């Protein structure tokens, strides 16, 4: 199939970007969306032009590196799917596809479709862990955990940190990301001692990074490639309220 692509080009963080239009030919429906971009880039290199920069690594939907906003949708139109797992079966000959980077002030564009997501690292640094040094652990089975709790914790921990929630949120809020980590750790007894300070500190860091606030719109959940539920945001809110009442989380 032949397609028209309108892709965001931006030289670096400081320069202004613009859309550029490209034609790609003979795209097979078996290709992944990124393989279609490989074809385009090879074509550009052959013409002596600079290819389009885009983030990608594992190409099996788990590393969270790929990050394209495709025709208005974070990671494209498929449900529970990252861009690298989106396949060209979705499109038909003659389609026009508009591809933009994640857009949020907290995710500045590095080049073209590549954005800087180090703000997510800093949110984790603020408390997204259990403080246990290597060697301190008791036997793994000394701590039975209700299966349902463990499963819920796993579902929250499935977050790949891709930032689709921020990209999709009209407020550019990172609440789904923060809530997934807070939930993962709050649901487990190991995470209990730090649960309140964790929620408060991570939220304060999220605010500091310049993400928007959550207004319960739900676009994040709809676009999350890993199906992280809004229920996690409810849990984060509960954790936060708990911290307010107990006065925990003196942190910054």
């Amino acid at each position, binding site marked *: 199939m032949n397609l028209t692509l309108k892709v965001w080009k931006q030289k670096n963080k400081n320069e202004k970007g613009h859309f550029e239009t490209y034609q790609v030919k003979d795209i097979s429906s078996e290709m992944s969306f990124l393989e279609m971009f490989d074809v385009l880039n090879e074509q550009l290199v052959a013409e002596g032009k600079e290819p389009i920069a885009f983030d990608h690594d594992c190409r099996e939907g788990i590393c969270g590196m790929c990050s394209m906003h495709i025709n*208005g949708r974070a990671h494209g139109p498929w449900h529970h799917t990252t861009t690298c797992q989106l396949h060209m079966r979705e499109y038909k000959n003659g389609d026009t596809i508009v591809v*933009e980077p994640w857009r949020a*002030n907290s995710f500045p564009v590095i080049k073209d479709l590549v954005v800087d997501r180090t703000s997510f690292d800093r949110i984790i640094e603020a408390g997204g862990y259990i403080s246990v040094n290597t060697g301190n652990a008791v036997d793994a089975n000394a701590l039975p955990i209700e299966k349902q709790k463990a499963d819920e914790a796993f579902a929250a921990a499935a977050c790949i940190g891709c930032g689709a929630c921020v990209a999709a949120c009209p407020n550019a809020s990172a609440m789904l990301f923060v809530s997934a980590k807070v939930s993962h750790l709050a649901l487990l007894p190991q995470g209990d001692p730090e649960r309140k300070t964790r929620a408060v500190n991570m*939220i304060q860091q999220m605010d500091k990074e310049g993400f928007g606030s959550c207004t319960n719109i739900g676009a994040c959940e709809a676009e999350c490639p890993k199906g992280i539920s809004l229920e996690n945001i409810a849990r*984060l809110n*509960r954790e936060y309220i708990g911290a307010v009442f107990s006065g925990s989380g003196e942190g910054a």
Partner: protein
Amino acid sequence: MNWKNAFSTSIGKKLQMSLTGLFLIIFLIVHCYINAQIFYNDGGVRFTEAAHFMGTNFVIRTIELGLFAFLILHSVQGLLLWAKNRARRNTRYAVNAGNSTSKWYSRSMALLGTLVLLFLVLHLSKFWGPNRLSQTTGNGELDLYTMMRDEFQVTWVVIVYILGCIALGWHLLHGFYSAFQTLGLGTHRYKGIIKGIGVAFSIIVPVIFALMPVSFYMGWVS
């Protein structure tokens, strides 16, 4: 975390919205109950009795102050949040997901809220304002029932009231659920119930409100 910090983070501000919103929801129930007295069609006897109680009881009048404070807080904070959130994305998308990932009314709370607020200004200037003015200037309470009957003969007023109620309905459709979600109750166990009640509430209450001008206009109540 001190109390000031507790309410100034992004969740803290959401809590302000949620708590004031819930208070306004409770107010709506009371207001709706009082006004629904007109449907007894008793020439406004029961309605005037209730209105007299609401307008003169000390406790109610005190709560009324709180109501205004919360209303202002809810409006101002809401608009500030909207402006701030909008500024979190300086370069906007060329193509948006639109309704495929979220509901239009969830994304338009500030707009719907502003419409409700504008409607409120009109509404207050027609009934509450003159009445309290008359009370404070020593002229006693006005006959609200008669005022209503007269106002709601005017076609444009009735239309504006209906539109106001529609805006309120959409605002509540998101707001009701959202208030509980912010309080952390949107779990798989309660989410369905809350959403169900929310939908019912956002239809029933605005419909009852809208029925008042319509009933007077159509002459169902006189």
